[in-house]
């Protein structure tokens, strides 16, 4: 179990050049244990930079990143251990797949960690099952897989390392609604079964509302709102002002109040909205 605490973190791209840009500006935020935290923000808000801070891919200019109370940059030579503990699944799965077969690809991380062959085999099988990869796909080249399957393979490769924190950058982008629901549900099941911390970056307000326990909103290099989906999405005006949106059903709830029907403004999923309407039970 691990919690990530970020304190006063600042990061500047291209320092000392004419293109100097402050990507993270004095960020203090905690990613709590045993829950799914959603990270949302406009393009250039600093989400991706922040994500790369979590497993030490980028080193802060100032400020600290604590994993389980320990500053990850205390021993820079040991930073690769942090990458085993904080698993990152990137937005383009093809960027992190490379081996001859899916099985070998998934086995790469565990092998690097020094797991024994029988442990590796077990980790690969388990991870593949978690990610919903059918067994026959394990012997295929990762490059012969469809987009959705590649995403599962990349996810399995990270889960196989048994990371304490799982970070996913747009895990469902480009997938059809059915595949989207399935992969997000799998991530949720993984979190619920393992009790670990999962962090999801996404541009889909509907998905974040449905699958996250907590939402952190980034704008211009720093968090601006934090809370449960109900708390965050009830602040529509603030979200609009930083280039974001609220789920459509939240807009319906707001419009309903203008029609004299108050079902609350803390509505963020269709099921939830339906449950507040008389006689409309969950189907």
């Amino acid at each position, binding site marked *: 179990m691990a919690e990530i605490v970020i304190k006063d973190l600042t990061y500047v791209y291209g320092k000392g050049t004419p293109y100097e840009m402050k990507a993270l500006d004095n960020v203090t935020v905690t990613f709590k244990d045993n829950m799914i935290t959603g990270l949302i923000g*406009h393009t250039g808000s600093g989400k991706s930079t922040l994500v790369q801070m979590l497993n030490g891919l980028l080193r802060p200019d100032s400020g600290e990143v604590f994993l389980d109370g320990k500053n990850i940059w205390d021993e820079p030579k040991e930073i690769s251990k942090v990458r085993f503990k904080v698993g990152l699944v990137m937005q383009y799965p093809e960027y992190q797949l490379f081996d001859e077969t899916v099985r070998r690809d998934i086995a790469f991380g565990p092998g690097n960690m020094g797991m024994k062959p029988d442990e590796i085999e077990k980790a690969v099988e388990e991870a593949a099952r978690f990610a919903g990869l059918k067994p026959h796909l394990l012997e295929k080249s990762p490059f012969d897989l469809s987009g959705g399957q590649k995403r599962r393979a990349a996810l399995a490769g990270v889960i196989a390392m048994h990371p304490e924190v799982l970070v996913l950058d747009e895990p469902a982008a480009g997938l059809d609604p059915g595949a989207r629901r399935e992969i997000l549900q799998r991530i949720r099941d993984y979190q619920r079964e393992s009790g670990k911390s999962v962090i999801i970056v996404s541009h889909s307000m509907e998905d974040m509302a449905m699958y996250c326990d907590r939402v952190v909103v980034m704008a211009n290099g720093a968090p601006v709102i934090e809370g449960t989906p109900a708390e965050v999405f009830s602040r529509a005006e603030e979200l609009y002002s930083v280039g974001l949106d609220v*789920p459509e*059903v939240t807009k319906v*709830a707001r419009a309903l109040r203008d029609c004299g029907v108050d079902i609350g403004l803390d509505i963020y999923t269709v099921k939830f909205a339906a449950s507040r309407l*008389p006689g409309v039970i969950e189907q």
Partner: protein
Amino acid sequence: MNKIIEASHLSYAYPADEEGMAPHVALRDVSFSVNEGEFVAILGHNGSGKSTLAKLLCLVLEPDGGQLYIGGKNMTDENVSDEDVYAARRQVGMVFQNPDNQLVATIVEEDVAFGCENLGLPSEKIRKRVDSALATVGMTKYARHEAHRLSGGQKQRVAIAGAIAMRRKCIIFDESTAMLDPAGRKEVMETITKLNREEGVTVLHITHYMNEATMADRVIVMSDGCILMDGTPSEVFSRPEELWKANLDVPQTTELLWRMKKAGYDVRLDIFDPRLCAEEIARALDEKKD
């Protein structure tokens, strides 16, 4: 009404590869036509054949069977002349998913001019077209900016400007909003709508966002290489069960109304605007009270 695209019984299979992978049938017996100036959304699960269809319409792939007319000319006729194929290719343009993969020049206006330069147009003409295309997509003040520094939505608008400058009659958007943030998505959808309404450009918009499909005149739903539904957004989204079965979705407004209907309320399902949806719900609740 002139038909810009007329497809009848199109089929296409990706050929078998050296390693003995079986040929993959991507499209089977697809027939439809698109009128000039129409705005058509195309929905479908991953692997349903949407992108293959787009490639056939841009003449990047040749169909295995069936007939395809672009601007009234038969592209599948054995004796079709090279000039006719080039002319057809000039009519249909495409904007892709990843904003970073389709800009070719470093400066915005040079990127927009790239296609026109390839058409061999005189430079004054290119200048005029680039300026007016940038104005159409609202990017005039970025003309001299570096393209790679723009936001995702701005990059997509530059790619659209490139297609407008080439005077494309029809633009196919292949999930061009998939990678954008909500503001970027809105920018691009507003640009697409404006292009269609004000400039008369025919639009085929492939998307996984159901809300974007409600903005179109017509929605084509693909499943397993075939056309499953073809109708107005109202007609298509009034059939949620079938869409869910095809791995698709309906707008949240429709889903909420569908749940009310299941609970015995008398409501329409084809309402996509949150305000109108709220009015419909309030009306139905009131009715039930009486």
